[in-house]
């Protein structure tokens, strides 16, 4: 390795360290300032809460045993709706790919459903599926399933026509074209849909919990604001940040592992 290249690698490494240091520094600074302003009563901690109060609040939740109940409820609803939305979305997209006729017939309906703010269906959902967990899951499912259908179908249609002709010339049936070409070719696309759906499922779940829940992070947020326990609201927000990031990172990791086979 030449001296020049060593220097170049060193520069990259230093830059990485600098970025990380600033990132962590920024976090410590912000939380420090927050804590300080509460301590010196520049602001009213009753309204703004403070990092230490948040930690205490989380510890409280943990002691009472509620922490895992709420986290578990939200996580369960999110993961379930996320998986259902992906599964149903991809299956419908396959059906649309299979039948051009079906696509033509359903197209206007999909456009309407896609433009409709799904939250507007909240009251209907509660009446139809009951005010409980299934309503939350239905809400989260609805928010991501339509966009899943549309993006997956677009991906299916984008497969190179020449590849399809190649398989046709080999005498492939439609089902063979589906599982030898369309689906494997679309794995990267489906993974990127997963990444979008992670975010949407969180939106749907929290929204659903706002509407009907007796447990979960969304419930904590609503409850906390109603009884004006801002510590609880802040604590829930922080927990939500952590959970959503972890879920996103795990999908990103899967993407990284799979994409090695596609480049």
């Amino acid at each position, binding site marked *: 390795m030449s001296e020049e290249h060593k220097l170049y690698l060193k520069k990259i490494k230093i830059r990485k360290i600098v970025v990380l240091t600033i990132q962590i520094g920024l976090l410590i600074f912000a939380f420090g300032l927050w804590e300080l302003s509460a301590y010196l009563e520049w602001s009213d901690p009753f309204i703004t809460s403070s990092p230490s109060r948040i930690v205490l609040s989380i510890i409280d939740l943990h002691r009472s045993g509620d922490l895992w109940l709420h986290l578990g409820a939200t996580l369960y609803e999110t993961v379930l709706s996320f998986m259902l939305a992906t599964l149903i979305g991809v299956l419908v997209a396959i059906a649309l790919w299979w039948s051009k006729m079906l696509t033509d017939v359903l197209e206007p309906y999909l456009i309407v459903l896609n433009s409709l703010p799904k939250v507007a269906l909240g009251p209907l959902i509660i009446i139809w599926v009951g005010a409980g967990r299934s309503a939350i899951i239905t809400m989260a499912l609805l928010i991501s399933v339509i966009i899943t259908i549309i993006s997956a179908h677009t991906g299916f249609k984008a497969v190179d026509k020449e590849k399809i002709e190649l398989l046709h*010339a080999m005498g492939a049936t439609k089902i063979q074209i589906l599982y030898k070409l369309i689906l494997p070719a679309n794995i990267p696309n489906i993974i990127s849909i997963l990444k979008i759906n992670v975010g949407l499922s969180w939106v749907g779940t929290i929204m659903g919990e706002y509407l009907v829940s007796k447990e979960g992070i969304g419930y904590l947020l609503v409850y906390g604001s109603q009884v004006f326990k801002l510590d609880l609201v802040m604590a829930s927000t922080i927990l939500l940040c952590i959970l959503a990031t972890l879920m996103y990172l795990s999908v990103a990791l899967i993407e990284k592992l799979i994409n090695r086979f596609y480049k």
Partner: protein
Amino acid sequence: MALLELKSVSHTYHSPEGETQALNDINLVVEEREFVSIVGPSGCGKSTLLSTLAGLITPSEGEVTIYGNPLSSEKDLIALMPQRDQLFEWRTVLNNVLLSPEIKKKKTPEVINYAKELLCKYGLKDFMQKRPSELSGGMRQRVALIRTLVGSPKLLLLDEPFSALDFQTRLSVCDDVSRIIDEEQKTAILVTHDIGEAISMSTKVVVLTERPARIKKIYNVDLDRSLPPLKRREQKAYNVYFRSIWKDLEVINE
């Protein structure tokens, strides 16, 4: 009996904008071990002709026969090499090559061995378990050709398989493909817009007219076939054919 025969084949496309006749009364006989190139002005219907031979299009009129039988019953004797190599990125080189037997549910140990044999024979031994992205453009083209060979077809259809390559690679891939087809004793039909490629690789060059394509002229190319295509370009007759075909196409373009 001739390997392939086209009897007054015509084809018309229908679209909401109207109908377009692409092929008009094509008659052609291809014997075994021939290398036939089809040239013509762009958009004349060359690809339609090839799609017809690949069984992707059923012509509106006329018939295509393989050894006297209708094409539809002899599709296994034909293999297509598309414009770009169209290797599947998620499959290894070996699995790409085995695609056709897999589709036909004929992936027997013998076929797998044959595929490996071909890959070894043509310099891809160390790349069998690699992904297509790890191969050079020329090697990818060789893999695409071997993919057509594993089903032991009689007739190879090459749809401008070199058009995506840079000029240098193109010339060497031409030599490669020509040698492999020769060694494997296959018959081939090549669609191209490159006159030089057509003359240097073929035993016969078919010149088509503008759309709707008819056969304008057929040249029987008499060049020393013991030489690779690149060397054939240095023979005297090559230039004579080139000028003549060039003129045929020029007249059409006016």
